[in-house]
């Protein structure tokens, strides 16, 4: 991280921590939660897709596996949600390890890897829809019992702070990737895998490690989602839209940068909130949902066309930094 980056870190963290005290409405705190949570999931995508170049179109599979594992442990086996939480991370890690071993053993790279992850997530959705343990398409309701001991809170601000903590944790991990050997190796693999191997890097092992880490973090996110909304079903757990959102926030902010997913998530959600009102103001538009999707699409096209390095690319171009800010 540059000196500038460090100077912004302290005030940035304080501002995020103070946000619920400044904007006290439930609406504002919920938007804040959504921004931080999407930034967290986006960062887990970024660790694999941005830093290591392992572009996944199905990252939601880790989220979904994590969400179902802790929820089933709770509702079917009566395990406390806090205790179930680490198992979500473990399940996500195992899923990442498995996908990595299978697809990298088979030599799948780039778009082939992306398509495999997309397919695996779809398989997850179909399986969740058809097996009894997930209660199929009905989804699973978690019994509401809002006590901190149950990982349920009456005041949504607690979820805001959990999302903030996760987001900061993921950013610290991402930051470490800019300054450790592991991170340097992932960057080398992203830029040129043959050259990386020639320099003694076991690219298979490093890529599997990276996907395992990313899967663990993303899986842990699944539990938080279920604990907040107390409900999970196959299309939430394995929906393509969530995968797209994860890669979108990272790419808009700047893939392979520490701050990218947070900035991307902020921009995307603010645009989303604004266009929702815009949709209601336009005459003849009854359902605002398609409009925001159109705007998302337009934003993505604009980013790819003019800012291939994302919004962080703007800063970097000005500060003439190396790749790792």
């Amino acid at each position, binding site marked *: 991280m540059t000196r500038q980056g460090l100077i912004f870190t302290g005030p940035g963290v304080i501002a995020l921590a103070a946000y619920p005290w400044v904007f006290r409405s439930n609406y504002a705190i919920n938007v804040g939660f959504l921004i931080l949570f999407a930034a967290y999931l986006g960062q887990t995508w970024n660790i694999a897709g941005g830093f290591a170049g392992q572009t996944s179109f199905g990252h939601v599979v880790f989220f979904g596996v994590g969400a179902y594992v802790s929820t089933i442990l709770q509702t079917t086996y009566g395990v406390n949600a806090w205790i179930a939480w680490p198992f979500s991370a473990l399940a996500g890690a195992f899923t990442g390890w498995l996908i990595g071993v299978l697809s990298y053993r088979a030599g799948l790279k780039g778009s082939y890897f992306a398509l495999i992850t997309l397919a695996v997530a779809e398989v997850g959705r179909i399986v969740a829809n058809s097996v009894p343990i997930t209660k199929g398409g009905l989804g699973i309701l978690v019994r509401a019992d809002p006590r901190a001991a149950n990982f349920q809170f009456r005041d949504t601000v607690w979820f805001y702070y959990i999302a903030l903590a996760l987001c900061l944790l993921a950013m610290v991990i991402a930051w470490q990737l800019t*300054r*450790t*050997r592991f991170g*340097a*190796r992932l*960057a*080398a693999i992203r*830029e*040129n895998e*043959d*050259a*990386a*191997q*020639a*320099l*003694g*890097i*076991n*690219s298979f092992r490093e890529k599997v490690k990276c996907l395992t880490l990313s899967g663990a973090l993303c899986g842990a996110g699944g539990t938080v989602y279920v604990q907040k909304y107390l409900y999970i079903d196959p299309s939430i757990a394995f929906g393509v839209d969530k995968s797209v959102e994860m890669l979108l926030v990272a790419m808009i902010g700047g893939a392979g940068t520490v701050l990218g997913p947070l900035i991307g998530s902020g921009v995307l959600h603010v645009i989303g909130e604004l266009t929702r009102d815009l949709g209601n103001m336009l005459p003849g538009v009854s359902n605002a949902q398609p409009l925001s999707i159109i705007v998302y699409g337009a934003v993505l096209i604009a980013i790819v066309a003019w800012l291939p390095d994302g919004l962080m690319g703007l800063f970097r171009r000005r500060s003439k930094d*190396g*790749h*790792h800010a």
Partner: protein
Amino acid sequence: MLEVKGLSKAFGGLAAVDQVSLDVGAQEIVALIGPNGAGKTTLFACIAGFTRPDGGRVRFLGRDVMGLPPHRICARGIARTFQITQPFARLSVLENIMVGAYHTTRLRREATAQAVDVGRRVGLGRQLDMRADALTLAGRKRLELARALATRPKLLLLDEVMAGLNPIEVEEIVGIVRAIKDAGVVILLIEHVMQAVVSLAERVYVLSNGRIIASGSPTEIAGDPSVIEAYLGPGAAARLKQGRAHA
């Protein structure tokens, strides 16, 4: 140090490398020359583990290394450069070299110091903060050399590190390669630039159509009729000799 025996590799019906044997001893610079398409780069790829040979043997420091993946071969002490330069384009020059340096240390500080040192040795001292894709061709060739060198190899395989450079740049790289050799690294190089081959190599192998057709000192090689014919076509050696006799 490096012993290659009867190494073969065919692509479909084409024998790219055909029963090649060569050896490189300690404290040596050995050159591998030959016309385009002779199989030099394929031979390198086989030695460095990027291509699996069909048959033969590759031993390094007395141990069999054939069939090992590239990163394991690098761990044994063999580093290669790529003829078509393969920089980590969006990383800085320093970060590029650090990837190599991390092969010998886990610590960032040490890797940085080592990379700066290697960068200076190959003459990239002033470009360390530049992005690798902003380098000129000569700069990229130096970067290939620096990255490989940063892994602290015992044997360096250099694949045309001077191709496309002007005579002054070639002169500089020759000096760098000689300094690397003096530091105790053994070098096997593929090179078309004869100026460099003559001034660097003690021994030369000539590869043509996948086979070693001659070996010896640079001057011996230059006068060998089979070598002349490999480059200029059948009968060329005789015509050259006649030409000289008439003159």
